[in-house]
């Protein structure tokens, strides 16, 4: 990890700078901005966690809401008995374990069967919990008595988001990341090149789910009470999926690029067209998917390459950077001619 970091000093410096700036933001920003950023971070973390597994393996999961909700419930139960930090950790572990069981039983399914199963899973967990609450607890709501400030929630989610993105980036550079991509491209080949596909899939599905559960648990700290329909809201699953697709699900930083504009857009639309919010958002989705089928990240990469190529032609910036860019251009050209 250290070696990877020292090899990209500029990226490390930028990330560190951005982190400090974002961490200090609540000092100057209004309560509204802090709340907006909380939603933003939650979406970015969820979309990144989703893409970490589904983007690379192409097992499209609609179970985001299920793990998110599991995290909310785990916190609601645990925070009455243990300190908040421990409750958050507990929620993460519960999300991991639930996904482990689900993964072992379902990751044999491929394509649309897996999609439908994960969708059904959310509904199943939702209804089972509802039944349990009514039959056993004789109530449908649980109250959250956590006294946590918005700023603390903000900082926690910022940390969770950064760790998720950095973790996703790190994994993309190590063997595990290659294994995930190989599974997405051709699972048979992956198996025959020595990849224990079941283990890789179940493990990464569970890691992804544990982040979702943690995000749910942190957000739950803001709620006065929860019930099953708040916790297991399918909108989360779709919103996260759309954000990841918009950003580019095959890059670790892609989902963030999708989630940020989507959250800002829906916030703007909700404020400006409160009555036609749903219609406006739907229209935006259609336009986005139509014009940006591959997502924002690949588009940005292409633009950057074109920009770099143009600069290389102008022999600026001075070598050795220019030489490197020229070499890249030559490679691109060779690719083209194929």
């Amino acid at each position, binding site marked *: 990890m250290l070696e990877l970091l020292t090899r990209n000093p500029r990226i490390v410096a930028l990330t560190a700078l951005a982190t400090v700036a974002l961490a200090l933001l609540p000092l100057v920003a209004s309560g509204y901005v802090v709340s907006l950023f909380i939603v933003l971070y939650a979406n970015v973390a969820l979309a990144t966690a989703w893409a970490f597994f589904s983007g690379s393996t192409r097992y499209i999961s609609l179970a985001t809401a299920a793990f998110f909700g599991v995290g909310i419930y785990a916190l609601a139960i645990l925070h009455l008995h243990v300190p908040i930090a421990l409750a958050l950790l507990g929620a993460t572990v519960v999300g991991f374990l639930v996904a482990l069981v689900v993964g072992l039983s379902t990751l044999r399914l491929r394509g649309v069967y897996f999609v439908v199963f994960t969708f059904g899973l959310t509904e199943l967990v939702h209804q089972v919990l509802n039944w349990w609450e009514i039959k056993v607890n004789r109530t449908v709501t649980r109250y959250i008595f956590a006294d946590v400030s918005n700023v603390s929630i903000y900082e926690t989610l910022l940390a969770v988001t950064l760790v998720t993105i950095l973790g996703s980036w790190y994994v993309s550079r190590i063997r595990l990341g*290659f294994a995930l991509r190989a599974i997405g491209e051709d699972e048979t*080949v992956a*198996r*025959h*090149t*020595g*990849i224990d596909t079941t283990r890789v899939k179940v493990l990464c599905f569970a890691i992804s789910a544990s982040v979702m559960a943690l995000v749910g648990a942190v957000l739950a700290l803001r709620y006065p009470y929860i019930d099953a329909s708040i916790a297991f809201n399918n909108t989360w699953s779709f919103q996260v999926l759309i954000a990841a697709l918009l950003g580019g699900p095959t890059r670790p930083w892609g989902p963030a690029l999708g989630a940020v504009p989507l959250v800002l857009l829906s916030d703007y639309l909700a404020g400006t067209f409160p009555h036609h919010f749903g219609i406006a958002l739907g229209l935006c989705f259609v336009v986005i998917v139509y014009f940006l089928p591959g997502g924002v990240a690949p588009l940005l990469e292409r633009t950057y390459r074109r920009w770099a190529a143009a600069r290389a032609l102008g022999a600026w910036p001075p070598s050795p950077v220019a030489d490197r860019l020229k070499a890249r251009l030559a490679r691109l050209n060779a*690719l083209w001619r*194929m």
Partner: protein
Amino acid sequence: MASSNEEVLLSVRGLQKAFGGLVAVRELSFDIRQGGITGLIGPNGSGKTTVLNLITGELRPDRGAILLEGEDISGWPAFRICRARIARTFQLVRVLPYMTARENVMLGRMFGSEAVQPGRAANEAEALLERVGLGGRAGQLGAQLTYIDQKRLELARALACHPQLLLLDEWLAGLNPTELQTGIDLIRLIRSDGVTIVMIEHVMEAIRALCDRVVVMNAGERIAEGTPDRVLSDAGVMRAYLGADDAAA
């Protein structure tokens, strides 16, 4: 069967596999000797690829044993078979389309036997690509390669697993005469490095040029076994495999 003075690497014993009512492989037994090239031939649908899928863990046998240096590996998952140093190529060529040639080969090196980290795997991948004739193409995507180059890439990926036994499923099919000669030379080269090879093949020229032994299958059963010359001149094999006209010629 194998003569006693040569060591047996892989031994198939009473292998059986049925798909529903169709028995694809029936009571099949044969030995693969260390260091040689064995041809597995037979008409279409005779069960050759099924045998290969059984050996590599893609399918589970209903009955029988597959002994690798004495250890029964039948029913092992494919990844374990690969790590036991049995690598394969696929009848319908399978490269990972959105990975570069380098990354395709790196997979074998990173997850096969004696797995290494990505950095080292990348270096070794370049050397392997060079060896199969894909030098300088490491950065190209799998999907961008031509058919023959995809076949080369698949071979490099299989070699990256450091196999002691390499299973080639019609690896020479669909090549033009020049490419065929290149392919034959390449397989010879791999054998000379001590890799034992089993090749399913329809190209008789290649069988004669390369194989020490040939196992002939028909309808899931072994109908002949021996040196290429003897087996290919066997009248029964001719009839079953090549049809009456070719048998006469």
